């Protein structure tokens, strides 16, 4: 066994005697750890800890938010997101079918819808639903105000994204699947429903879950259309409370509550995606 470290250097290592790459790597790691620890120490020493604690982690300010944080704000956030999701799902499915239809006017209508609603800020769409439409159509009523307004406003936007997701899902099924089905004598629609769609459904689960995360966050916009105390969601409650106590803790609490939902959902999405990538 050859163990004379002088023979280990390759042609490019030049003349001078050097540390082995392994030792160099170890040294670099040690140096980086040191720098990191030093940075941390500086941060702790220079920043006024008690001030930060009082501003961002004020227990009393946080306490004020309970139980409304869960019984009102989180509940409403979920209601807004889920109801918009349901509407977006149904409408998105219809749009996707239109987009894949062989009848050109369907495709045009669907394409126009998708382009428009993917290009507008959700906030503007909410304003148009909340103020623009009722003013234009006198007597237009939203019986479940604000829940129906929010579901429609956010749902219309979500539908555009979901339609694209569905379409992409169908198109991500390898074309050989449709060809194999057709070559067995299935009609186009039979092949779609029995062979392509069942596979597309699996492909779209991760992006559809992602859309739910998006809607959770977009529900933060609803305060623009006017809501009651009972209709407040997380961002509104957080900002109301922050204003009341002139303290940032309620923002932190509201943010943490979002993360309670969005982070696990995000991890789920990535798990599903990884599984799909593997099975392919």
């Amino acid at each position, binding site marked *: 066994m050859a163990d004379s470290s002088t023979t280990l250097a390759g042609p490019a290592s030049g003349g001078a005697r050097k540390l082995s790459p392994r030792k160099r790597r170890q040294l670099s790691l040690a140096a980086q750890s040191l720098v990191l620890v030093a940075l941390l120490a500086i941060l702790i020493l220079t920043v006024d800890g008690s001030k930060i604690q009082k501003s961002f982690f004020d227990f009393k300010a946080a306490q004020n938010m309970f139980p*409304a944080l869960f019984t009102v704000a989180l509940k409403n956030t979920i209601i807004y997101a889920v109801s918009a999701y349901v509407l977006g799902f149904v409408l998105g499915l219809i749009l996707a079918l239109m987009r894949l239809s062989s009848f050109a006017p369907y495709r045009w209508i669907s394409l126009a819808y998708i382009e428009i609603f993917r290009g507008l800020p959700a906030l503007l769409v909410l304003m148009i639903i*909340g*103020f623009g*439409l*009722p*003013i234009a159509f*006198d*007597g*237009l*009523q939203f019986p479940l*105000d*604000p829940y129906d307004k929010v579901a429609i406003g956010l749902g219309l936007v979500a539908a555009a994204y979901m339609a694209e997701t569905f379409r992409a899902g169908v198109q991500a099924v390898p074309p050989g699947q449709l060809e194999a089905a057709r070559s067995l004598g299935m009609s186009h629609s039979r092949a779609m429903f029995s062979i392509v769609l069942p596979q597309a459904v699996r492909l779209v689960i991760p992006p559809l879950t992602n859309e739910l995360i998006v809607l959770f966050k977009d529900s933060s916009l609803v*305060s*623009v*259309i*006017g*809501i*009651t*105390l009972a209709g407040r969601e997380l961002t509104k409650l957080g*900002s*109301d409370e*922050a*204003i*009341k106590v*002139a303290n940032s803790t309620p923002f932190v609490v509201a943010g943490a509550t979002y993360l309670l939902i969005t982070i696990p959902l995000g991890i789920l999405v990535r798990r599903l995606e990884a599984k799909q990538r593997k099975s392919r």
Partner: protein
Amino acid sequence: KSDTSGGGSTSAAPGAPAVKLVKAGQLTTCTSLPYPPFQTEEGGKIVGFDVDLVDLAAKKLNTKQEFSDVKFDVIKSGAVLNANQCDVAAAGMTITEERKANLDFSNPYFDEVLSILTKKGGAKTLDEVKSQKLRLGVQTGTTSLDLAKDKGIEATEFDDAGKQLLALQSGQIDVILQDLPVVNDWLKKPEVTEKFELGETIESGNQYGFAVKKGNAELLKVINESLDAAIKDGTWAKTYKQWIGSEPKSTPKTK
């Protein structure tokens, strides 16, 4: 139920005046929170001077008052009323000619006084604000914004009075222009008085009124009647004292 022009249902309570409400069984009030002492949330309920006065009308209609919290600019433009989002707008709102084009106002119930909230020892007047190029914060859509514009001051607009105060406290603006009762209410908080003080006050000669959708004479009548009654029987003065904290200088005229 005759419902020709669309928009809600008739209050069903027996003996109450027949007024169409956007939501059956409740008088929906649009307001912009927080706006103490006129409307503010306390312990999960919305309370204040305006709240108590509108409650009188609600009682007359045999309903209870419910709230929708929106930005002030959509109140004063009539958007929320035209959109049938609420029956009445009550938000410490000044009656102006411009707003009258979009809203039908009740009889006046309060004299408007604007004021400046400033750092201790800071600029006391709008003129100083202008000459020292200070950052002035106003609430979107309010008469304060109009006044600042008239003075040629480029003000920063905030969605509600709460964010306005927060911006002052966090040093994002130097001076606030806001209605005096609101500023006075803020000055009840020690963390505000510690750093800030009242500057000049500006009596505009304008008055506050409640508003309904243009043409909603039935509801306007109920509101005016209940206001008149309250002024006559002293309820108004009592409520004033309770929320504003001082005796009223003058009493609104009744009709």
